């Protein structure tokens, strides 16, 4: 039970933060440099295996980071088990749905025949 609770969650929070930070800094630097991508460029990036992996990785890190963060908030402020558990479940389902949607988008896009 200790795996996801104490240090592991704290560490994952920081590792995902670093990953997200890297993506955001690169993205923001690109945008500020005036390199707003055209549809063709963006489409080509997302169609490459590297691009697809990076996009899925980015959303994976976002969802994991968001989960640990919101779980901490719920643990602090919501104490009644009858509220806490359904609330955590609801947020977990939403985050899984986000990930699923991204995965489906990329699958449909990356594998046009599928």
């Amino acid at each position, binding site marked *: 039970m200790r795996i996801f609770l104490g240090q592991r969650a704290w560490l994952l929070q*920081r590792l995902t*933060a*670093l990953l997200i*930070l890297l993506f*955001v800094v690169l993205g923001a630097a690109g945008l500020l440099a005036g390199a707003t991508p055209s*549809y*063709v460029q*963006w*489409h080509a990036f*997302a169609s490459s295996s590297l691009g697809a992996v990076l*996009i899925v990785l980015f*959303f994976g890190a*976002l*969802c994991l980071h*968001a989960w640990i*963060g*919101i779980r901490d*908030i719920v643990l602090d402020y919501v104490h009644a088990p009858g509220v806490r558990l359904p609330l955590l479940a609801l*947020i977990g389902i*939403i*985050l899984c*749905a*986000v990930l699923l*949607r*991204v995965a489906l*988008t990329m699958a449909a*896009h990356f594998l046009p025949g599928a």
Partner: protein
Amino acid sequence: MPTPSPGRPRFLKLPSIRFPIGAFVSIGHRLSGVVLLIGLPFLAIALEQSLRSEADFAALAAQWAGPWRSLLLVIVVWAAAHHILAGVRHLLMDLGIGSTLTRARISAWATIVTAALIALSSAARWLS
């Protein structure tokens, strides 16, 4: 017989407590995190739309043109800026960089002011 109190009270009226600057960064970190969490499903939808077709890609930017939607965007920009800056501050402090009280106070002010400036500059661009 006097009526005894049913329980022990606790003093925890937050407006009566004088919070240090670091506490404002922290609650801002939380608030901005929740804002970004709410924005996450919309980001996933935007990803799909951006890849659907050239027209959908172009429509994405146009969707955020109205004044109310721009305001929403400014809030998201503030949230992202504050969350990232406060997050970097925490990452450095975890490693013992800037974790003394004096330095932590300075970086707390810097976080709040910089995030506000970024939000204001995006507001100046989109809301004018």
